């Protein structure tokens, strides 16, 4: 696992299930300070669930998640909220508050957590909106934004409190190539300029490869492979090769479990 002093988040022997289905079964994973870490894997492997566990929106059945040395499952509500002020999270759909303007959405955490003057809040919000190229959209409502713009506003809101850790949940899904390029550059720039730690959950291999320092590939509740995107590409693992090269069939079967094809078409049920 490497030098633990560099780790900002450590996940140890994590077990979590939904119903009878085990999502994680003894997961171990380290996220290093100042790096961009990508969590990848096929749909349904629990990538978003992992984010919710790290931020304690869900509680694990077994194991521990340490953020900066503190086990998040032991925190009280107020300690948890203090910890969450160190996080910024970009949700898949932006999750902008629909009854507030773009400006008020970005100002929302400042108004809730600080007693800054309106003048200073305006200054900070416009600075953050400028960083994502949407200073001119400050007076629009979320309903007036395109998908890519909404995600950029959400990114401005996620970083308005100057977090230590920025979490991106599927930041590239459903974006046109231009918006995608903008988001990829912003992720890299935020991380380097502000010295924060970034976690990206995604299955967009190409985009992740251009931006991530380290990637983890999840499968069957555990880490199937880890390393830089280039290392993952050249690995011998069948699963990793299937995922990285987008092959339809392999360890992750193309067909959902079903009775035999011939039997189902021509057997007794065909009547």
């Amino acid at each position, binding site marked *: 696992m490497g030098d633990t002093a560099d780790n900002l988040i450590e996940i140890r022997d994590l077990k979590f299930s939904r119903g009878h289905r085990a999502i994680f079964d003894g997961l171990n994973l380290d996220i290093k300070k100042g790096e961009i870490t990508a969590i990848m894997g096929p749909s349904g492997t629990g990538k978003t669930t992992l984010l919710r566990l790290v931020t304690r929106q869900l509680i694990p059945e077994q194991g521990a998640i340490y953020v900066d040395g503190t086990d998040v499952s032991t925190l009280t509500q107020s300690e948890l909220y*203090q910890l969450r002020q160190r996080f910024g999270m970009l949700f898949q759909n932006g*999750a*902008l*508050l629909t009854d507030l303007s773009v400006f008020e959405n970005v100002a929302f*955490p400042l108004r*809730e957590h600080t007693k800054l003057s309106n003048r200073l809040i305006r200054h900070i919000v416009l600075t953050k909106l400028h960083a994502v190229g949407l200073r001119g959209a400050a007076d629009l409502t979320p309903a007036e934004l395109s998908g890519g713009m909404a995600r950029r506003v959400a990114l401005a*809101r996620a970083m308005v409190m100057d977090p230590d850790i920025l979490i991106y949940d599927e930041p590239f899904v459903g974006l046109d190539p231009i918006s995608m390029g903008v988001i990829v550059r912003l992720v890299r720039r935020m991380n380097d300029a502000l010295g924060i730690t970034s976690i990206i959950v995604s299955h967009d291999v190409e985009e992740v490869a251009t931006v991530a320092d380290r990637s983890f590939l999840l499968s069957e509740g555990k880490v199937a492979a880890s390393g830089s995107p280039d290392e993952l590409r050249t690995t011998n693992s069948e699963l990793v090769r299937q995922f990285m090269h987008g092959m339809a069939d392999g360890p992750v079967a193309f067909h959902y479990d079903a009775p035999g094809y011939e039997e189902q078409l021509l057997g007794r049920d065909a009547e």
Partner: protein
Amino acid sequence: MRRVVRDLRNNAVEFLRTFGAFQLFFLRLLRFSPGMLLGRFDLVVKQVYNTGALSLVIIMVCGFFVGAVLALQAYSNMAMFNAEDWTGVAAAFALVKELGPVMTALLFAGRAGTALTSEIGLMKATDQLSAMEMMAVNPVRRVLVPRFLGGVIAMPLLAAIFSAIGMFGAHLIGVELFQVDVGSFWQQIQLTVEISDVNEGIIKSVVFGVAASLIAVWEGYNTVPTAEGVGRATTRTVVITAITILIFDFMITAALI
């Protein structure tokens, strides 16, 4: 037979569990309410506007016609006993003690309650509540409490407006249409309707306001976060609120008689 008993037991346990969670939810809302009223009253005022002011038209139109119908019914029956002067009294009693609070609460559930449930449900379905949690902002305090308080404040005001407009409708029918003497019409009301009758209406409208707002925010907060889930929650808000209000109406009336 054994299966029926088992199902009954499971349903009873589930009901008790939900009822317990509902009570705890109510206590959570109450815990945050003083802070909201003192510290962020602007959020409450916005919700009084959303639930109250935006329901005014429907409340006024319905109030007018309910008052007018009451006067029509009362006049046609009172006329048999040459007691037309009592038309206003019959309408006033029915409006102030019963129909004002009950009809307003039912209309409130249909107009504002469904809006609250679907708004909160959609906020949940689009991760807005999770986003607040991640911004270290408690969504119960920031989203639910102002909406709950807005409904609680708006309901008695709407009920009073309903009754007032209803009396205007009764006046038009009784005095203007059937030519009941205007002095007798209003004097009989003054002499007969006591302050205790008005208080009964106020008590009912406050209780119904708490019940209707509480059910609306509860259903919204516990929505299954899908399009179908929001639809179901909205329907449940209307049905449960209507039943609850009629049961409470009976209990309060029985207690005050």
